[in-house]
C-alpha cells in the first residue's frame, strides 16, 4: 500500500479544466449544470469537440483509438466534465458495449462499430431487462432461434435508456432453453431499425423521456450479429458489468451535486436567510462531505485493485455493490437537501432550463431549474444496475458463503 498521490494528476486536472473552459459552449454548459436530460444535439457537439482532441473514448485502449488512460486519470476527466456541466457522453456505446466488442467481437464487428461509437455517429441501447426479468436477469425469456443462416429474435425488452436515439441495440437472448442460463444465453448486436422491432417510450416521474421498451417480433439478425461464442452471453454481460464496477459510486456526479447543493443553500429564498447560515445545515454538509471523501477513496481503492488484478476479482469486499449502495443513496440525499434549500420553490415544476421566461413559465431562482427534475429522476439510482436490496444480498452472500 502506498497512498502518495501522483502529482502529475494535478497538472492533468488543470489541463482538462482549461480545455473544457476553452471549448465547451456556455449555453450547453448552462443546460448541463441544471442536470436535465441531455439534448442529443448537445451531446453530439461535445463528442465532436472531444473526438478532435482525441479524448472521446477515454476508457478504450490506444489500439482502438482510445486514450489508454488509467482509471485514476479517467476519473479526474469525468469529474471535470461533470463539474463544468458538459453533456453526458453516450456511455451505453462507449462504456458498456464497446469493451465487449473490442474484447470479444470479431474483427468485422470491431471495424464496423468502434469508429462510429467513438465519434457518436452511432448510438446504442441496452436490451437486457425484461418485464419479468429485472433483478432476476437470469430468467429472461427473449429467444433467438437459428434458422440455418440467421437468428430469429422474439421477445420484449424494457428500461432501455435513451433507446429513442439508438441506431443499434445489444441484447441478451436465450439460444438454448435446455441448459442453465449461464450457458444458454447469447449476446447479439441488432440494428434498431430492423423490421419487426417496435419501440414504445416510457415517461418517468420527472416527466422526462429516457426509458423505452422494445418489442421484437420475428426480427431477423444475421449470424454476424452474434458476439463471440454462442452461449457465452451471460459471461460477456458479467464482464460488461465488472468494467463498470469501480464507477458505480458515481463520484463525478456526487461531487457536482454537492457543489450545486452548496450554491443553492448559499442563496436567500422566500425572503429567508440562506440555509447555509443554519448551524444544523452546515453540519449536514460536513457530514456529506466526509462521506463523499470516504466514497472517493473507496472508489480509488476499487480502481487500484481492478487495475492490479487485470480483470480478475482479487478483493474480498464486494466493491461494486458497496460503491453502488453508498453512491446511489448519496445522490438521493443530495437531491433531497438541494430541493429543501429551495424553500417553497422546491415544490414548483420547472419544465426545462431557459433564460427567456415566456408567459406562464414559473418565476423563481435560476438555480431552481432542474433540481426537482433531477431529484425525481434519481430515484432510479437505487434501482438501476441491480437494486440496492440486491446489492445488499450480494454483499451478505459473499460474507456468509455457503451454509
Amino acid at each position: 500500500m502506498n497512498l502518495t498521490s501522483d502529482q502529475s494528476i494535478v497538472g492533468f486536472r488543470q489541463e482538462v479544466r482549461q480545455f473544457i473552459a476553452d471549448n465547451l459552449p456556455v449555453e450547453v454548459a448552462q443546460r448541463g449544470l441544471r442536470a436535465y436530460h441531455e439534448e442529443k444535439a448537445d451531446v453530439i457537439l461535445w463528442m465532436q469537440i472531444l473526438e478532435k482532441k482525441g479524448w472521446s473514448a477515454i476508457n478504450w485502449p490506444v489500439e482502438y483509438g482510445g486514450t489508454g488512460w488509467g482509471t485514476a486519470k479517467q476519473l479526474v476527466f469525468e469529474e471535470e466534465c461533470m463539474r463544468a456541466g458538459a453533456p453526458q457522453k453516450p456511455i451505453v456505446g462507449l462504456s458498456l458495449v464497446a469493451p465487449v466488442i473490442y474484447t470479444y467481437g470479431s474483427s468485422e464487428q470491431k471495424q464496423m462499430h468502434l469508429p462510429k461509437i467513438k465519434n457518436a455517429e452511432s448510438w446504442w441501447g441496452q436490451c437486457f431487462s425484461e418485464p419479468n426479468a429485472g433483478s432476476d436477469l437470469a430468467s429472461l425469456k427473449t429467444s433467438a432461434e437459428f434458422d440455418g443462416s440467421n437468428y430469429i429474435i422474439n421477445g420484449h425488452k424494457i428500461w432501455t435508456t435513451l433507446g429513442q436515439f439508438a441506431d443499434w441495440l445489444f441484447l441478451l437472448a436465450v439460444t438454448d432453453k435446455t441448459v442453465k442460463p449461464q450457458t444458454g444465453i447469447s449476446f447479439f448486436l441488432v440494428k434498431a431499425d430492423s423490421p419487426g422491432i417496435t419501440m414504445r417510450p416510457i415517461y418517468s416521474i420527472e416527466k422526462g423521456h429516457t426509458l423505452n421498451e422494445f418489442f421484437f417480433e420475428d426480427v431477423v439478425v444475421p449470424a454476424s450479429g452474434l458476439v463471440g461464442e454462442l452461449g457465452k452471453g451471460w459471461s460477456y454481460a458479467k464482464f460488461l458489468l465488472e468494467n463498470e464496477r469501480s464507477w458505480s459510486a458515481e463520484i463525478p456526479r456526487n461531487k457536482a451535486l454537492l457543489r450545486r447543493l452548496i450554491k443553492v443553500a448559499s442563496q436567500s429564498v422566500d425572503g429567508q436567510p440562506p440555509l447555509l447560515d443554519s448551524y444544523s445545515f452546515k453540519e449536514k454538509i460536513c457530514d456529506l462531505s466526509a462521506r463523499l471523501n470516504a466514497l472517493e477513496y473507496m472508489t480509488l481503492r476499487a480502481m487500484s485493485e481492478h487495475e492490479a488484478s487485470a480483470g480478475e476479482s482479487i478483493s474480498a469486499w464486494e466493491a461494486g455493490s458497496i460503491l453502488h449502495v453508498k453512491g446511489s443513496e448519496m445522490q438521493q440525499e443530495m437531491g433531497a437537501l438541494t430541493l429543501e434549500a429551495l424553500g417553497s420553490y422546491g415544490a414548483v415544476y420547472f419544465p426545462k432550463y431557459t433564460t427567456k421566461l415566456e408567459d406562464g413559465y414559473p418565476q423563481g431562482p435560476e438555480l431552481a431549474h432542474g433540481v426537482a427534475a433531477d431529484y425525481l429522476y434519481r430515484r432510479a439510482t437505487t434501482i438501476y444496475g441491480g437494486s440496492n436490496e440486491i446489492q445488499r444480498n450480494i454483499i451478505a452472500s459473499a460474507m456468509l458463503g455457503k451454509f
Partner: protein
Amino acid sequence: MNFLLNEEQTLLRDSVRRYVEKEYSFANRLNYAASGEVNRQALEYMVSQGWMAAGLEESCGGFGGGIIESCLIAEELGRAMPLEPYWALAMAPTALLSSLCTSSASALLGDILGGSVVASPILSGVVKQNETASAKKVSATEFSITGSGGHVYGLNALSHLLVTANIIDGNSAERAMFLVPIDSAGLNLKPLTLLDESKAAKFGLSEVLVPAESLIATGSELIAATQYAERVAVLGLCSSAIGMMAAVIDKTVEYLKLRKQFNTAIGKFQSLQHRIADMKIAIEESRAIIHRGIAMTKCGDDDSVIAVSEAKYLVSKNAAFVAAQGVQLHGAIGLTEEFVIGHYFRALTVCSHILGTPSEHLRHLSSYNDYFTID
C-alpha cells in the same frame, strides 16, 4: 496510489495477527482487566518485534515504514481490544519525538523504542487545544511545573508523561516539553477506568520538580510536532476501531450461520443479511476515510487536520453502528458479560468517545469555511 499491501506489509500484518490469535486471548485480557496489572509481556513483545518503531523512517530508528504500517499494527492489535493502547503508547510519542530535532528527543525516542521508557503525550484529539502548564526554572538544575495537564491513556503502562509547558521567564514565555516521571510528587493523577476496563487519567501538576535534563525540546517546532502526534494518534485509534469492527463482523457472521431458530440458520433471513451487509459497508467506509487521513497526514497537507477530524467523525459513527448491530444480531447472548461481543460494544464505545466525539468533530469541521465556498 496503490491500495494493495506489499509483501512486507502483508508479513507485518500476518505477524501481528498471529500474535493476537496466539497470545492475546479474550481470557487473558479478562485476567489483566480484573487484576489491573500491566501486561508486560505484551509491551515487551511490541518492543522486541520493532512494532514501536513501525511508523518511523530508518533515520529515526525505524525500518522505513510510516503511518500506513503503524496503522496496520493498530488495526490488527485492535482485534484483541488491547488494554495497552498502541496508538497512545507507540504511535503518539514516536510521531512527536521523531518530528523534533533535538538530541534529547532522539535519545528519548531511542529509550522508548528500546522499551526502557513508556511515555505518552497528553492527547485530546484534534478538536481542542491542550491547555498548557507553566514551568519556571527554580535552580540551575531544576524546573518546577504547574498547571492543568489533560488526558493520558494506557495509564498502567506509563513510566513517564510528555508534558508541554510554557517556560516563564519574566515577561517572556517559551514553549517547552518535559519528560515527567509518572510518580513525581505534585503530579495529581486522577485515574479513570474506562468502559473497556483500560486505564486512563486526567491529571494536573502542582509544583512538580523535574531535573533540567528532562527538558526535551523548546520552541515553535513543538507546536507542529504536537499537532502531528495528535493526528497520528487519532488515525491509530481509528485503525484500532477498525480491527474491533472487523472482529465484531467476523463473530456475527459466524453466529448467523450457527444459530438456528424456526429450524433455520438465522443468516437465511434477509433482514439479517441486509443488516450484516450494512455493517460491512460501514467498516469499508471507515477504512476509506482513514486511508484518506493517512494520505493527507503523510504528505504534510495543510488540510490534514480536517481529513483527520473527518476520519474520527465517520469512524466513531460507524463504530457505534457496527457495535450496536453486533449485539443486536446476537440477541440476548450479546447482552451478557460472559460473551465477547458486549466487550467489543464497550471498547468501540470508548473509541467513539475519546479524542473527540462525533458531535465534537462535526462542530469542529463546520468551523472551516472551505466546506461552504465554491471556486
